[in-house]
């Protein structure tokens, strides 16, 4: 039985369809990514799974419990890291964990045994009695993650867990999430950092306009949609553009401002051409998930 099972999920706000006929299956112990540009319906989907909003149509079960009718029972076994920090500013670090644990009905003794381990996990033991206002952004995220683990959840739901963090803090969160995945926790995360999805997720779904447009492992998605080599010609592209148009150096080409993106199976010819023009800056790299994402959702800004 999958941990999360969603069929035909639809949610409308007035005339706007936030989620449109979404199907999802997340197996136990899997790290699953929900990707999409702003407004793709990621957060709405999470809120539907938590039973915080009600769908217009479709079915959801989590751990075999139907949502939203048994959402309260299902949330007993879910940990949530929200997109926007909502730690309780009236309390210290330890109090935040203790008060949150009480919402799950945990007693004082259980909490006293549990909290030091969570502080250790989040590397916040030295801040145990500090007020929330004294924590850095990375510390707040770590505490939010520790808070989500207070009830020892089977399923962790993370909404853009590393947005706004510096690289050190981001790597620390990634390492912790991998650690949790190894412990057998099922993880569902939304992100628009492709690197994050590529590093963490076993499988992912790309959403756009509330609809699922692609699904698979990161490797499969990349090989399915993108040629294996990418050369980005960053500047003075005009000089080679003509040559590129005359002869098929690459399988596919895309222009974005000053930069030319060339996708191909065999890069050698184009590299030779570029080496003749030392004034041209270029970057040769393997195809990645970001290429898939841009190909499927386009380059236009989503505000």
């Amino acid at each position, binding site marked *: 039985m999958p941990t999360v099972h969603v069929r035909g999920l639809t949610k409308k706000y007035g005339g706007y369809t936030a989620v449109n006929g979404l199907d999802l299956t997340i197996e136990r112990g899997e790290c699953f990514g929900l990707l999409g540009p702003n407004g793709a319906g990621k957060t709405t989907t999470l809120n539907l799974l938590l039973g915080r909003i009600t769908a217009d149509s479709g079915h959801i079960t989590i751990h075999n419990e139907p949502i939203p009718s048994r959402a309260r029972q299902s949330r007993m076994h879910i940990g949530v890291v929200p997109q926007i920090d909502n730690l309780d500013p009236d309390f210290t670090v330890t109090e935040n964990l203790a008060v949150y644990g009480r*919402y799950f009905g945990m007693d004082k003794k259980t909490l006293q045994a549990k909290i030091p381990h969570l502080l250790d996990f989040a590397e916040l033991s030295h801040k145990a009695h500090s007020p929330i206002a004294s924590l850095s952004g990375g510390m707040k995220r770590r505490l939010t993650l520790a808070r989500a683990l207070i009830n020892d959840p089977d399923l962790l739901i993370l909404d853009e867990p590393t947005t706004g963090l510096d690289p050190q803090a981001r790597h620390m969160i990634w390492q912790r999430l991998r650690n949790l995945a190894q412990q057998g926790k099922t993880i569902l995360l939304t992100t628009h950092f492709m690197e994050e999805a590529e590093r963490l997720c076993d499988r992912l779904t790309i959403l756009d306009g509330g609809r699922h447009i692609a699904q698979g492992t990161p490797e499969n998605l990349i090989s399915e949609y993108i040629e294996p080599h990418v050369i980005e010609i960053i500047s003075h592209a005009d000089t080679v553009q003509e040559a590129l148009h005359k002869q098929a150096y690459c399988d596919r080409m895309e222009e974005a401002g000053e930069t030319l993106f060339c996708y191909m199976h065999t890069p050698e010819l184009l590299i030779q051409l570029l080496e003749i023009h030392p004034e041209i800056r270029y970057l040769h790299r393997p195809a990645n998930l970001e290429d898939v994402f841009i190909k499927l959702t386009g380059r236009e800004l989503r505000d």
Partner: protein
Amino acid sequence: MRLPQPSLRFIPIWRRNLLVWRKLAIPSMLGNLADPMFYMLALGFGLGHLLPKINGIPYITFLAAGTLCYATMNSATFESLYSAFSRMQIQRTWDAILNTPVTLDDIIIGEFTWSITKSMLSGIAILMAILILGIAHNIMLIWLIPLAGLIGACFTGMALVMTALAPNYDFFMYYFSLAITPMTLLCGVFFPSSELPALLQHISALLPLSHAIELARPLVLGKIPSHLFTHVAVLTCYGLIGLCLAINLIEKRFKQ
């Protein structure tokens, strides 16, 4: 419109607010005690010496019952407007709680019972002031504590509706100008509402603070209030209808 669905999971919400209050308990209780003390001292003695007895009661005794109702009303109102709004909207405390097995009904019932508790604490402070100032001492005074809770329930229900509708803190000024201030002045806190023109007397009789005062004034004098059931029922209705409306409105707000 649906009825509240209560569960015992409101208790951790109540305890959360208690834990915050405990950090500031001394200044908070001092404020609860000092404010009404100064009112009763200044107006009761200052103004009281210039005034004749009201229905055979010294002015300070008359004022004590009004102060209890007025201060309890304020305590519930401030808690359920500003404090609840900041937990709902600014600090996103409710948002975090909704990811646990606690529901919105539990949260609002937790806030409701907490605000009643704070009103009772404020009632206890005024009772102490009444005893310290020697305004009254009789066994019926003990009933002022549950009465403070009832007044708290009434004004919490009303204030939570305002919180549910508020786009920001400024919105609450309407409620103060159009509801709280008129009640303070028209419902017999400082003078009997029978002194008002007939039209204002009719309006005053509909307002919940008048019913609170009709209960408090006889209790301060050691008497059983007349029309006890009616006054209790009016306060209860304001509180419960307010709670019910607030739950429906806040649910709508959270599901958008």
